[in-house]
């Protein structure tokens, strides 16, 4: 049987090949993937009303919906998209054509007609179409990470409530490409890690850490609370925005202050509670016109007073369900004040809808990571991986001086890098900078094992010379695997504590390393040993 035949009929080599093909399918690389992928469709904005939807965070990158055409102009990348978007006009129509791959084979195409009332109201966040399913960590693609610690340790069911509530807050706020997870450390502290892909969103810090305990009180009596007592919060331009009667005004110190207002609908229970509390209040008349009740409606967010609203006399003892909420914001310029005011309105609306979190949270770490820096790091990481591999190859060639020996080693190292990436893609595991270090280390340990196997196979004397200590190839492989397996268990043992330490911040490193070495001992090393046995056989015969 020729060597090629032997290689192609070997089970272990086939397992390796099949596994390799499967992981390549998981990565699903396509360097020509065109368009811009949809990251977020903001609720109630034009794109949303036309039927566009945010992707689910669990969608593989290559299965995300991509915009490929706007108004007949093709969109190949972010530059094209931005050029087209910057030329949009108010009160115009927009035709967007999208594509979405399913199972990597079928492509589904959709066309949306968007009626754009204002060009700022499109409500789409997009990014360059991904070229593969490899998920990049925040430090490589840009994004925001907030690590929070609950004031008291939460029971599992409370954690669920907390995570759902936070997720909802982020969605309502207009962010969908988010991951919220619970992490622990070795001292059994609990952490909530929130990751928002793609953008530097410092403004969400507050939204996440606020418990969002909203209470409306008259005197000392609580009338309604955020979440359960509120059935509807208006967020359209008709019934929410800057207060038209007050607008923005310059204050005595030269800065500006604005007021916002929006309407909400209370449950009947809450409106009756209000009627009951107001029934006993006096009416106070100030000058002409309608009088006010003697006590005002005080709005508290997390125990601090947000605003105090005067109650019209007609509302006394009257169970109204529609009321209007207001508040204020300030800034150095009119524009800044207006933006800050609308921002705090948005946050207040969000917590009124979602209700309060089951516990107070403290922010203990925030990372706002720049996408352009991430790109730079990624380019650098690819270069490093390539050149480290070349360096290792050089060492292997120098040592063995035989292409026949060096080639399998190099093939296996290259495939191992791809296997780590593929398995990570399959298990939706991010590759971050620490993960890249893990890959470089895996190249190092991977080659270590292969050197052990090669040396065992090469240096065991000639059969005729030393009958007694002569070992067959499979006996030598077995000996080599003793060392390989011990080294494997030792590496995994050293990485396990990292999986659970320090709020999981170094998990990326531990996981890529563990994936790398596990895949090594299960798939690639056995195949490698067989490859070497077959290739070296003739030398001795």
């Amino acid at each position: 049987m020729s060597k090629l035949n032997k290689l192609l009929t070997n089970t272990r080599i086939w397992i390796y090949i099949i596994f390799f093909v499967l992981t390549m399918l998981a990565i699903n690389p396509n360097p020509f993937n065109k368009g811009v992928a949809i990251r977020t469709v903001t609720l109630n904005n034009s794109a949303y009303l036309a039927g566009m939807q945010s992707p689910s965070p669990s969608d593989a990158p290559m299965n995300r919906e991509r915009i490929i055409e706007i108004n007949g102009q093709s969109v190949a990348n972010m530059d094209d998209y931005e050029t087209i978007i910057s030329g949009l006009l108010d009160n115009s129509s927009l035709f967007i054509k999208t594509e979405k791959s399913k199972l990597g084979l079928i492509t589904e195409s959709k066309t949306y007609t968007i009626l754009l009332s204002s060009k700022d109201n499109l409500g789409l966040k997009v990014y360059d179409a991904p070229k593969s399913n490899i998920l990049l960590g925040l430090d490589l693609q840009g994004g925001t990470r907030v690590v929070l610690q609950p004031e008291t340790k939460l029971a599992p069911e409370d954690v669920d409530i907390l995570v759902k509530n936070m997720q909802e807050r982020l969605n309502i706020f207009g962010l969908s490409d988010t991951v919220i997870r619970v992490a622990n450390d070795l001292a059994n502290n609990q952490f909530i890690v929130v990751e928002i892909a793609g953008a530097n969103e410092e403004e969400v810090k507050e939204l996440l850490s606020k418990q969002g305990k909203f209470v409306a009180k008259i005197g000392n009596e609580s009338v309604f609370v955020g979440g359960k007592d509120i059935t509807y919060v208006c967020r359209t331009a008709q019934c929410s925005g800057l207060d038209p009667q007050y607008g923005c005004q310059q204050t005595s110190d030269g800065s500006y202050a604005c007021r916002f207002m929006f309407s909400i609908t209370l449950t009947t229970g809450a409106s009756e509670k209000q009627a009951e509390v107001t029934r006993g209040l006096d009416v106070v008349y100030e000058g002409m016109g309608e009088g006010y009740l003697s006590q005002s409606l005080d709005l508290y967010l997390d125990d601090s007073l947000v605003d105090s609203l005067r109650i019209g006399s007609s509302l006394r003892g009257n169970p109204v369900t529609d009321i209007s909420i207001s508040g204020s914001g300030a800034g150095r310029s009119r524009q800044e004040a207006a933006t800050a005011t609308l921002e705090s309105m948005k946050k207040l609306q969000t917590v009124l809808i979602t209700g309060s979190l089951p516990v107070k949270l403290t922010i203990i770490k925030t990372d706002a990571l720049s996408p352009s820096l991430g790109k730079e790091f990624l380019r650098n990481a690819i270069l490093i991986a390539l050149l480290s591999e070349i360096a290792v190859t050089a060492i292997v060639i120098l040592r063995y001086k035989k292409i026949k020996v060096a080639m399998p080693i190099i093939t296996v190292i290259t495939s191992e890098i791809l296997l780590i990436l593929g398995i990570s893609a399959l298990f939706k595991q991010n590759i971050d900078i620490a993960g890249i270090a893990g890959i470089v280390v895996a190249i190092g340990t991977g080659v270590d094992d292969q050197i052990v196997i090669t040396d065992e196979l090469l240096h065991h004397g000639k059969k005729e010379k030393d009958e007694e200590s002569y070992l067959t190839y499979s006996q030598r492989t077995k000996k080599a695997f003793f060392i390989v397996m011990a080294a494997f268990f030792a590496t995994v043992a050293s990485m396990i504590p990292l999986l659970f330490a320090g709020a999981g911040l170094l998990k990326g490193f531990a996981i890529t390393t563990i994936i790398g070495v596990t895949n090594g001992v299960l798939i690639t090393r056995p195949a490698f040993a067989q490859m070497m046995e077959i290739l070296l056989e003739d030398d001795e015969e």
Partner: protein
Amino acid sequence: MSKLNSHGHEKREQHKESSKSGSFLSRLKDFYIKDYKKLFLIIIGLTLLSIVSIIYTYSQVGDFTRRDVSLKGGVSLTITTPYSDINTLESFLIEKFPESSIILRTLSSGSQVKGIIIEASDVQDKELMDAVQEKIGKIDKENYSVEIMGSSLGESFFKEMFIALALAFLFMGLVFHFYFRNFYVTFAALLSAFLDIFITLGVMNFFGIRLSAGGIAAYLMLIGYSVDTSILLSTKLIKEKKDDSDKALFGAMKTGLTMSAAGLAATTISFFLANNIILKQIMLILIVGLLIDILTTWIGNVTLLKVYLEKSNKKNRP
């Protein structure tokens, strides 16, 4: 205990032969075989120097190693900018925030400066960013990263490092013992792994390098690397019970040094090319650690195993 033979007589014969041939390499081999106890002084010396370096660092900063903001708490600002006059910027910032400790570095790729990294403690990120922009002009949101580490998390992260290291040693010891069923051999391997980490830390302290969270991963990895070579050595010297333990030793050494060379090649290339400081630090620790590991394994661990072999030999011979 009768399993372990080192066939001392044969060994001596072989040495005579090799010293006759007289080449530098064979004399070196000879010295290595005969005077390994003298070589062990190198390990003791390095350990003592590391103790001094660590105690000195402790007297300076009140901790056995310097820590960066990721383990101490503070703000780390990374900006993509062509501005490269970091000395001017540094003195400007120090003047502006006299209370806080500020360290500036450039972010470079190869020899090209791509940006600036500013680490500061006891300062608000907004104020710091405003001050930086005052000096070098407006920076787009896209082009900077702000990482803020709460001091409590930084502190606990640092403490966790010890627990993680201790656990890693414990697990490693269990794996080793499961494989070799010999306390002394396990102890020798763990000691050489420990010395590897300890001396590497001493070297890092000597150069005043501040440990970051990523560096912790590197130290853990180092245990793995170090134990890899120890497993190879112990297998060849103890487990396989070769007639000629010196020949087995040199065989293992050839394999082990190739392994270290491959590891060093990958990490050295990565260290010089990386533009990310976390990656750079991980690689630096691995490079120093791999170099030290050559000494701790092929002198330290070897000496301990040889002493063991000799003793068990004497026991077996009247």
